């Protein structure tokens, strides 16, 4: 008699822990032939709010850490993912996701290298007409909500673009994306990413995206994965969230879109 597999329970990833949805809800994910894969958690508004609290709490330390350290931690994610290539290949295949895991790993390495070059890319000293030293530097925006397109590569691209600069995030992994996304949460948990920097909610975009858009402690949203954006933008206007969606992968504009330019003047004199 062959051995019975030990199967994984899919839960959420909030504040570095793996809780079930407080709503107690799950949904079924099957493969292309209709065979059962898992019952991921169907995240609720309350789960989203808990995630925002975790993300806000993690923001000061993550954005305040050196760019070098953030780069090393993101590189560490790539290292951990590399070691689990076979698992991800199997999961992506079973869920019909065309992402090549090697491409996702290389993309993470690409983002790891950006953390300490953003100021060179978008910072500047300004030659103002007066005795002042004046410089503009990009810095992290805060808590950013993400709904990516539902492939693992898009998920990784939007996620890394947001956290590389020092933002913390609540990201939605809908439908079957839940399977590789929650395995990726295990990668994060062993990569020295501080708790709360990345929070992953599985479930439905239609249910979660409006709460992301209207939450008053979220500073920006990437809604690349949402087709009808009008209502979300109306909701986001209440605290003037920065709302973006993108067409190109692997584009530093995606990082800069969720950064704020800070300009500092200081007098020059003796």
């Amino acid at each position, binding site marked *: 008699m062959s051995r019975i597999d030990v199967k994984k329970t899919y839960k959420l990833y909030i504040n570095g822990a793996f809780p079930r949805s407080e709503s107690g809800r799950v949904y079924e994910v099957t493969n292309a032939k209709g065979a059962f894969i898992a019952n991921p958690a169907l995240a609720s508004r309350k789960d989203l709010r808990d995630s925002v609290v975790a993300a806000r709490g993690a923001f000061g330390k993550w954005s305040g850490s050196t760019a070098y350290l953030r780069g090393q931690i993101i590189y560490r994610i790539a290292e951990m993912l590399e070691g689990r290539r076979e698992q991800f290949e199997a999961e992506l295949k079973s869920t019909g996701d065309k992402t090549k895991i090697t491409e996702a790993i290389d993309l993470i390495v690409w983002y790891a290298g950006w953390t300490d070059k953003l100021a060179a890319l*978008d910072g*500047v000293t*300004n*030659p*103002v*007409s*007066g005795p*002042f030293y*004046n410089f*503009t530097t990009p810095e992290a*925006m805060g808590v950013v909500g993400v709904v990516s397109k539902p492939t693992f590569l898009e998920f990784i691209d939007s996620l890394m673009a947001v956290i590389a600069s020092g933002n913390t995030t609540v990201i939605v992994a809908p439908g079957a994306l839940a399977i590789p996304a929650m395995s990726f949460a295990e990668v994060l948990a062993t990569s020295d990413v501080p708790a709360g920097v990345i929070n992953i909610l599985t479930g439905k975009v239609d249910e979660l995206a409006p709460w992301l858009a209207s939450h008053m402690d979220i*500073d920006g949203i990437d809604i690349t994965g949402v087709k009808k*954006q*009008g*209502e979300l*933008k*109306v909701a*986001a*206007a*209440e*605290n*003037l969230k*920065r709302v973006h969606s993108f*067409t190109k992968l692997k584009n530093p*504009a995606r990082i800069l879109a969720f950064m*704020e*330019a*800070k*300009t*500092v*003047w*200081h*007098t020059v004199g003796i």
Partner: protein
Amino acid sequence: MTFEYAPAPESKSVVKIEKEYGHFINGKFVKGKKHFATINPATEEVLSQIANGDKGDIDKAVQAAQVAYTKVWSKLSGAERGKYLYRIARILQERAREFAVLETMDNGKPIRETRDIDIPLVSAHFFYHAGWADKLDYVGVGSSPKAHGVVGQIIPWNFPLLMLAWKVAPALAAGNTVVLKPAETTPLTALLFAQVCQQAELPAGVVNIVTGAGETGAALVNHPGVSKIAFTGSTEVGKSIARAIADTKKVATLELGGKGANIVFEDAAIDQAVEGIVNGIFFNQGHVCCAGSRLLVQENIADEVIKKLQRRMEKIRLGDPLDKNTDIGAINSKAQLEKIKELAASGSAEGGEVWSPACELPKNGFWFAPTIFTGVTQAHRIAREEIFGPVLSVLTFRTPQEAIEKANNTPFGLSAGIWSEKGSKVLWTAQQLRAGVIWANTFNKFDPASPFGGYKESGWGREGGRHGLAAYLKAVK
């Protein structure tokens, strides 16, 4: 000791105001249908009748801008566009005195400020952006970036011509054409700017100016021919614009309200800090979105700072804005004066202790004496809401961490000030503050090369510098 100064009024003879103005559409002044008065807020004298633009006027202006964009402006080389902007900058310099006097009459701000700050910065903005027009590949949005097309621009009354320059100069440099709506109470310098465009032989339709109030602005925002909105004004209206364009392809930059913290540490140079506090809140009657309207002073020096501040405030001269010795001019409108009075009353009602120097207010016009509130807590309305007047709320703190907590405890994030003689503390504080513009050992400084704009509910995007210009361009897909 009191200083007596003889009146030193600037002559009005340099300015010629028409009895009535139309809109500036397609290079010509077009007669309006209905009109409203624009007044001198220091005297309540009617200066002129201004056309009240409706949907039809906006439509004509947008059409003119569309034609000018397709047929003329987008076909010019960047170098040629730049030369028009250089011309405009030079004419503005030549006519600087005329603009300064007219701005002071229509707005109420002191001639000292319009003459030395507003108008010189206006020409500087055009000169700066003129040089960008043929260098757009280096703005940072990719090579051969594209203009948006027609840009709808809505500007406030606090720096009327300066806000026009902040909007129009980068828009034209990037290759857009413009429909601009000046503020209802301060349209005159924008209309005089239209004459500058004529003198510079700027192609017809590249700049169009439609005067009016909120409805005129809404018509501009909602016009389908407009590709981008640039707005400076209240956070409330900014949010309504964000909602209005939510289901369109329009993009927007929004420069909105603020409640800037001006932090004075115990190791600050106190006399300089006091000057900075005065400049931070009483510059332009406090009608400044980035004003240092919350003074956060370290507890152990609070008494000394407040005493020196009061002594300094007793020397502030309030009165005729055209007088060259005037520090504080008139409040821009009756409505704004009422708003300031209402918020100041709430400050007293909620337990703040109010103080103003002995200060005689002129009989006519709209005036508010420079005022400080001590004993203010973070819960008070005057510590949370933008007053947009010469009213300072004073709070204290014990540790740098507490100062940061209090400074960042606001939905706004436009500006902040830091006063300390210790470099490492200044830079640490600048890092911690969640605001787009930080002045260290100075306040309320502006320059076309320096990006300006806020975090959080203070708006979207920046104006000025490479960052500001980028908002008027889009990457080629």
